[in-house]
């Protein structure tokens, strides 16, 4: 028991590792604040493209979504960070993460928004158009607000995954929380920093999880 406490919950080690963990935590926050809005905006764009009449556009979107959902995000990130510079496209570590996440998460968010848009009955479009709203205004003021509301649980759930996925930024040497923890672990030969990082994730994500299940219960109650 003592051994467990000293190797996993060691306060001395935690004190030493804390500044690293804190720096990593801020990096994770920074990544999240860039990556999530980008992914949501990209996903909305992808979903709107699927509503277009052009069959070519529809096909291109299907290919895009299928490809980036099936392709491992880690490999995608490494290719963008280490492969593209050979083509004289060097985005820097942070830029590479932003682009890789945009490509990967927009395909997931896109599918969620698409389901939301498809849940809106035709009558809503017709009512809006019959009052003179253009197709774009109808989307912006009538369809998307309702569609988003209908898929909030899925958006939250996907966002939880995205936040956890930011740990892959470590492969391009962005010292996010988990990377910092592993560094600290290898220096101290002690697992406490990893556990601490896990607890930080837990504390930060738990409110979102609570929120999610509240929405899910409300949706069940409404149906």
């Amino acid at each position, binding site marked *: 028991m003592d051994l467990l406490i000293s190797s996993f919950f060691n306060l001395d080690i935690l004190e030493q590792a804390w500044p690293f963990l804190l720096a990593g935590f801020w990096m994770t926050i920074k990544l999240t604040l860039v990556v999530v809005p980008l992914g949501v905006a990209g996903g909305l764009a992808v979903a709107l493209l699927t509503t277009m009449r052009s069959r070519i556009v529809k096909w291109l979107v299907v290919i895009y979504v299928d490809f980036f959902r099936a392709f491992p995000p880690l490999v995608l990130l490494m290719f963008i960070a280490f492969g593209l510079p050979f083509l004289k496209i060097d985005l820097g570590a942070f830029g590479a993460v932003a682009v890789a996440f945009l490509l990967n998460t927009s395909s997931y968010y896109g599918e969620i928004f698409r389901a939301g848009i498809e849940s809106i*009955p035709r*009558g*809503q479009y*017709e*009512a*809006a*158009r*019959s*009052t*003179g*709203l*253009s197709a774009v*205004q109808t989307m912006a*003021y*009538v369809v998307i*607000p*309702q569609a988003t*509301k209908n898929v909030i649980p899925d958006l939250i759930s996907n966002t939880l995954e995205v936040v956890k996925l930011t740990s892959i930024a470590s492969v391009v040497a962005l010292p996010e929380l988990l990377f910092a923890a592993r560094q600290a672990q290898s220096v101290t030969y002690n697992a406490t920093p990893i556990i601490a990082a896990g607890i930080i994730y837990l504390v930060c994500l738990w409110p979102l999880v609570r929120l999610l299940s509240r929405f899910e219960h409300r949706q069940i109650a409404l149906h």
Partner: protein
Amino acid sequence: MSDSAPILDVRALYKSFGHLEVLKGIDLQVKPRELVFVIGPSGSGKSTLLRCCNRLEEPNSGSIRIEDIDILAPGVDINAVRRRIGMVFQSFNLYPHLNALGNVTLALRKVEGKTREEAESLGIQALTRVGLAEKAKSFPNELSGGQQQRVAIARALALEPVIVLFDEPTSALDPELVGSVLSVMRELRESGMTMVVVSHEMRFAQSAADRVIFMDDGRILEQGPPEQLFNAPDHPRIQEFLRTIQAH
């Protein structure tokens, strides 16, 4: 009726869905302040005719003029045209994420470009007209079906249309709620609004319509004042239809 120019002028209108021909040459003129009632069996093309008049459906051929504007002409600003044509739907189609006032003011703000204050004052006027000013802040799911339909009518009226099209406005309502919607429509009629109503409310037609049109299989079979059409129709098809309606 005076012989003033028609507000709505439909000529030789044809519409097909795939191989199914739904409208087979419709001619219909509606004069200012006229209330035209359209009846007929389901599938006869009544709703399609109405929906062609603001181009929710695209006709295959023919012409439709609203206040002498050819609304099928290439390059016509259909959004501007639709502002002049109110439409009320069977299933209300209120926006569930906006309250009653929000439903009524959305187009005023986004299409007409009015400020929130202007739009809200016009919106309250429109809601007052349908007797629901006190429900301005209520959301659609807090309103009865009859109230929802009256908000939908207010939404159409707020844009000051020259004509309002009603597509079976009471058929989704519980019987005890129909009256409130009909009395709003009657008030509208008395204020001189030009209206085309597709509905099975024969009693309302009898007391409020200037003209009743009987449609069958994509054509106008007969039209005339309600007394004539209801009491002495020329076509046995109409007598048969009226019997089945009354049986319910």
